[in-house]
């Protein structure tokens, strides 16, 4: 249980070629999602299948299992392309996390019984439920919307403005930070404090 130390973002170090490749893959994914385009999928397949195969061969040291991983991963990509969220990361990272999950299950396949937990349950990245993680545990979003107006008047101005922009105007914390000219860290802590305060107000009132 160490404190998480500061680390540098990798995104800034992407080369132009990588960015182009990422844009290309994102475009193909959206064509697959929207039009079920077999041509787009075939192109994406040719980009990723060899890489996945090489990854899987190193992981399993077994040609057949490696091919299983490629096929299962790409089958998920074909059927779940609509679940790729460009704002959450690059296409290849998304495909990698699918492969990671398939690998987790393949490694347990021999011992696996019917009700055993699967990687999809541990990393629900392909869940159709679009559960938002943003205020996740802090407060239930619907409760927040319904009850907020009353309690909300009791928040300090600086926190109220932030909550208003995020929950009513639907802005991201980064956008609020830009709009107010206040550092992102401050916005995050104001959000957290405001949610905690609201939670206390609501609980006290029960």
């Amino acid at each position: 249980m160490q404190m998480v130390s500061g680390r540098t973002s990798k995104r800034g170090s992407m080369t132009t070629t990588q960015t182009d490749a990422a844009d290309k893959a994102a475009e193909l994914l959206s064509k697959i999602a929207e039009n079920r385009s077999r041509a787009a999928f075939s192109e994406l397949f040719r980009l990723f299948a060899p890489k996945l195969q090489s990854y899987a061969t190193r992981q399993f040291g077994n040609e057949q299992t490696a091919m299983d991983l490629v096929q299962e991963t790409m089958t998920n990509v074909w059927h779940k392309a609509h679940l790729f969220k460009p704002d959450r990361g690059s296409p290849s990272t998304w495909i990698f996390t699918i492969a990671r999950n398939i690998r987790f299950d393949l490694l347990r396949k021999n011992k696996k019984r019917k009700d055993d937990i699967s990687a999809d349950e541990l990393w629900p990245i392909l869940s159709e439920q679009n559960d938002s993680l943003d205020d996740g545990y802090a407060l239930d979003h619907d409760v927040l919307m319904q009850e907020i107006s009353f309690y909300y008047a009791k928040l300090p101005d600086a926190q109220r403005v932030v909550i208003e922009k995020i929950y009513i105007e639907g802005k991201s914390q980064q956008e609020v930070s830009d709009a107010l000219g206040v550092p992102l860290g401050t916005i995050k802590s104001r959000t957290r404090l405001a949610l905690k305060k609201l939670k206390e107000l609501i609980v006290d009132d029960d």
Partner: protein
Amino acid sequence: MMIKSHPGESLLYQYASGDLSAAMTLVVGTHVDMCKTCRQTVCEIEQKLCEENLDALVGVASTTMSKSQCDQMLEAIFASSACNKQAHQPNEILSLEGRRFTLPRTLAHNSHRIGEWSKLVGKLWRAPLTLDNGNQTNLIYMAPGAKVPEHTHKGQEATLVIDGVFNDEQSEYRDGDFILLDPSRTHTPETQDEDCLTLATLDAPLHFTSGISRLLNPFSQLFFR
């Protein structure tokens, strides 16, 4: 309120690579659901892993899968039906002892695995969460004023606070705090005025270390398994 106790970076790395046990993956993953900092870190690690494992392999393209292998696989994929093995509906509300808890995402997705609650010593309740053959994690509920007798862990234990607060000799732990205990440390978790719901992995039964509670040792696997 800031989460102050996080999984170490190597644990997050193993989590992102898929190299932890199912039990540890569930506990770390639930922390990640609750913790923006670690979520960001995991995103960065996944990106790094992807760069190392997939992106770096620009040259392999033509040397591996043959054209006919590719075509064959593509055909199989187009012929496949969307694998909608109907997943269990996530249930994020847990009711216990008149309390309602909101479960974080990963845990909510596994709510159907939560077994019967049973009352343990003192003011403690436990429900097993069955993962796979012989492996489980435990949800442990400590009512206000509960105390677990001093013990050590024979295996490595991870505990995550889902809701509430408890303390041991070292510190106080609140929503989202992740605590890794190793066999060298004895501790005596307790709650004060508030209750606490935690999720814990346990590789081996607890070993009670002090006074009369040593008498519990022969039965400890009945309490926490």
